[in-house]
């Protein structure tokens, strides 16, 4: 059974790579381009892991993360924050709000895939 991955990012130029990568690894992929869509997809698509961007329209990644963690039904979902914000304080905030990993752009695709695989066990 292949794992389901939700990619949440408003930039098509990164989504194209992520989507291709994930599909290549054999995951089922769904996309969301803003925070609200991400929350809907989280329930509808029931992903095992979410790649979550922070700077997005409507709801920021922080808010989405906090909302996801507040929902007991989604407690098992792994969250990787994937962002261009690299400040130490933001990393701390992301992890405090319940993200499982925090990866700053630019990142190595190999590392990302490795990280995802280790989280999904």
């Amino acid at each position, binding site marked *: 059974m292949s794992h389901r991955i939700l990619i949440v990012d408003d930039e098509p130029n*990164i989504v194209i*790579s992520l989507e291709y*990568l994930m599909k290549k690894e054999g995951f089922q992929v769904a996309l969301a381009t803003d925070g609200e869509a991400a929350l809907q997809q989280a329930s509808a698509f029931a992903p095992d892991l979410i790649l979550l961007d922070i700077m997005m329209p409507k709801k920021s990644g922080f808010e989405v993360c*906090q909302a996801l963690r507040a929902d007991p039904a989604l407690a098992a979902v792994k969250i990787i924050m994937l962002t*261009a914000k690299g400040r130490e*304080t933001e990393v701390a905030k992301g992890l405090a709000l319940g993200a499982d990993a925090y990866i700053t*752009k*630019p990142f190595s695709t*190999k590392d990302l895939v490795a990280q995802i695989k280790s989280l999904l066990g």
Partner: protein
Amino acid sequence: MKAKYRFMLAACVLGLLMTGPFALTAALLFADAKDAEREAFAQFLLPRLPLGGLMTLLGFIGGLILLRSLFQQYVHGLLRMAETLRLMLGANHNFRVALEGPPEVRELARAANHLAQQRDELLTDVGDQIRNAKATVEEEKNRLAALMSELAMGVIVCNLDGRILLYNSRARLQFKALAQGPTSMSGGALIGLGRSIFSILERGQITHSLENIQQRLRKGSAEPTANFITSTRNGQLLRCQMAPVLRTGADSTTTAIVNNLPPTPPPGEGSDEVSGQAVPDHEKVLDNALGAELEVTGYVLTIENITRNFEREAERDQALQALTDGNRAALGNIRAAVETLLDSPEMEPDTRARFTRVIADEASAMSGRLETTMSRFADSLKTRWPLEDVLGIDILAAAARRIEERLQLPIKHEDQDAELWMRVDSFALIQAITFLASRLQDHYAIRELRLRLSAEGRMVFVDLIWSGTTISSETLYTWELEPMTVGAETSPLTLRDVIDRHGGEIWYQRDKAAHSAFFRIVLPAAVMPEAPATDQAQHLHSDSRPEYYDFDLFAARDAAGSGIDPERRLTDLAYSVFDTETTGLQPSEGDEIIQLGAVRIVNNRLLRQEIFDQLVDPVIPLKPEGIPIHGITEAMVNGQPKLDVVLPAFHEFCAETVLVAHNAAFDMRFFQLKEESLGVRFTQPVLDTLLLSAVIHPNQESHRLESIAERLGINVIGRHTALGDAYVTGEVFLKMVPLLADMGIVTLRQALDASQQTYFARVKY
């Protein structure tokens, strides 16, 4: 007894002395003799009695003449001399006693003249010294004024009440430039001698900085100054540096001021627990050793408008942000695309083409971004929010004090690392903490707040913890973007602004195990070794301090006072002397104000630079018959602000002063009629020079301003403009104050009472 009676008494005594013994002897002999002897005695004596009587009379006359001349020389002579001495004592210092009369009197006169001589020499000497001292002070003042006027920074000196004692023209210009609204006066006029600095700068900010300075002084800091940035009501940013004006505590008469200062809470109060925790014991010892000798009597503020600098700075920050975060994303996209391409040789040609396009797009966007960022970066100047290195527990203690004071919300301290230093804008941060506390109290009725301080790497965590109630995380997002308000106090900053200013973060977190929730504020840590305390104490006490602290400025403490107490002396109060020009004399029938002029009196001086002078558009047409009187034409009032703008500005100009006007009832009537529609009430006491003139010269026919000015010897120039008349009224008033004092009218209340009692007071418009 008068000299004349004493002379008559002396004459009687002389008469008795000359006749008495003889008559007594005769009577005794007569009583002792036998009848025959008595007869022989009478026969012998009676015929010779006229001769004896005559001789006695002659002797008596001689005695009288002698007595009279002695009286003339000694008694009258001395009386004359006493009168002369009295004259010398008062009216004519150069007068001397004439050397006449008997030697003893002359000797006395000579001695008195010597004394007078000595006194005159002493007087001249003291006079010279005073003159010299005055000249020195004057010279120093001029030197300081010259020095200050050349400074490119605004300088304001205030006493502890926040009264402005000194300002330079730069400061005046800076605030004038900040003036908003269409009147020429608003803003700029608010800088003035005796005025409160709090009308310009936020009171909390000043008090907080003073507290900081006090604390540093107690610790023996080398630079007991405080920096802060504040924004004015119209959004300009001012950078202020505050330096204390110190006096060593040798002068015991002024030490009381120290006790009035806020930072040391009196023992036994609720805040004791907090301060006890926050202030280590060794500090208290220093407090006693140093604090007793140093006394802050006021402060010097240097002020710089950095709005433009700050805008540049914000721009620069944006540029940097664009360079880092913007390119980080682009680089991420490129890297992901490239790596995918490399790892996927099997990729379809058109998918490959899409990936190549991504790389090309992102690369060109990146170079464009780099280009614009670099050009913007080039004209940005380096200005920063002045973040200070502060001991973390000091900030929490101050915040706790503030929260308990303002919100009556109990604060507990939990796991506070006493060694942590952080780099913060302490005022803004304390405001932020207080704001959060107040929100929690208002919306979630929390009963207690705990403050925790911890660190991780280069980050310091400040946690605000409460039990029970949980909140939704959206709530914090909303609070972050609101301007921070606590009670009536509003900050122009939002919580987000404060956090961003520190490069920090804030979030809401729950601690399920402990049944509590907390806000965590992350701030940058600072490494701050405490400066050695030894040499600064010396620096503060050294004689190298500039001389101009010797000004009598700080004696003016309370001279302008806060609030207006009717028991205060007329000479101690600050006044706004004003006049209006109007379309006509019937305020109740629609006449309107067309010009308002005012000048301030502080410390018995008419401050001709601190004025209010404004034409007003009356909205109704001017009456042609009025134009020759006030000289104001339609063209002049067209386009001028209306009273709804001018009157509030004028109200602000007059704040905390007694109003003075000639025939004030007339002007006040105009104001009263506008009270409701404009929401401006003049509640301060009003003195009327017309009534005061009637008090001083009840028998004079005319109490018109010209007549009074003429009586008091004042040159009248520029009459019948509002400001011109205000000047004259002000001078008249200043001349009246000593005349009133001669009549026993010294305090404001006495002046108001006396005014009311005069006949004119009953005339109402």
